[in-house]
């Protein structure tokens, strides 16, 4: 059974190798797709149903019942913003539905601080060939499938 992973934000789906951070572009923590968000303040939503395993203002991990853990990182080096401009709607340990809003943030504001607002969506600790139906170009809206993971 494979798990479909949806986009957490609306924007332009992009190859993960384009992310300006070696941890993501070299898939050090796992393979995935990046989305360059369009527009201003918006919700970032859960890419899969599951449990909120890790939660920072600027990033979160959802562990799906199928075993895949999906990391969504809102912008690059955004840990340095110390949560400013990020509004959380869930708590660590919460069980969420795919598409449920997790964080409200503003990609334009992130960029105004000099950071990239691109959002890597990564499956943690799996081989790169675990992804199928990968979409890494073209516009997506939140919830549109980016890839599937698992056999």
């Amino acid at each position, binding site marked *: 059974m494979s798990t479909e992973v949806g986009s957490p934000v609306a924007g332009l789906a992009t190859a993960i190798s384009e992310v300006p951070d070696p*941890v993501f572009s070299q898939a*050090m923590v796992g393979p995935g797709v990046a989305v360059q968000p369009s527009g201003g303040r918006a919700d970032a939503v859960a890419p899969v149903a599951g449990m909120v395993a890790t939660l920072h203002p600027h990033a979160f991990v959802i562990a799906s019942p199928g075993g895949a853990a999906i*990391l969504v*990182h809102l912008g690059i080096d955004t*840990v340095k913003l110390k949560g400013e401009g990020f509004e959380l709607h869930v708590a660590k340990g919460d069980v969420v539905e795919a598409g449920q809003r997790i964080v409200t943030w503003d990609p334009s504001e992130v960029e105004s601080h000099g950071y990239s607002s691109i959002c890597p969506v990564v499956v943690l600790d799996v081989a790169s060939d675990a992804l199928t139906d990968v979409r890494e170009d073209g516009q997506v809206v939140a919830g549109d499938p980016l890839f599937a993971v698992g056999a």
Partner: protein
Amino acid sequence: MAQDKAAAILAALGGGDNVVEIEPCITRLRCEVEDGSKIDEAALKAAGAHGVMVQGPVVQVVVGPEADTLAEDIEDLR
């Protein structure tokens, strides 16, 4: 086990005295050290790091989502 990993990472960073600050992000430990030459990249990778990036006194150790827990364990050891 996790404590051993934290200890191994701390040792590879040059020990508690060499570490100025450790901040966990979701995939990595961001560490500031006194002396960058004391960092043992091979030992960090042997301790389980997926990758190591050194920029002067700032070292990023890529450890995956257990970064939060590891950072707490390392703080306990310092």
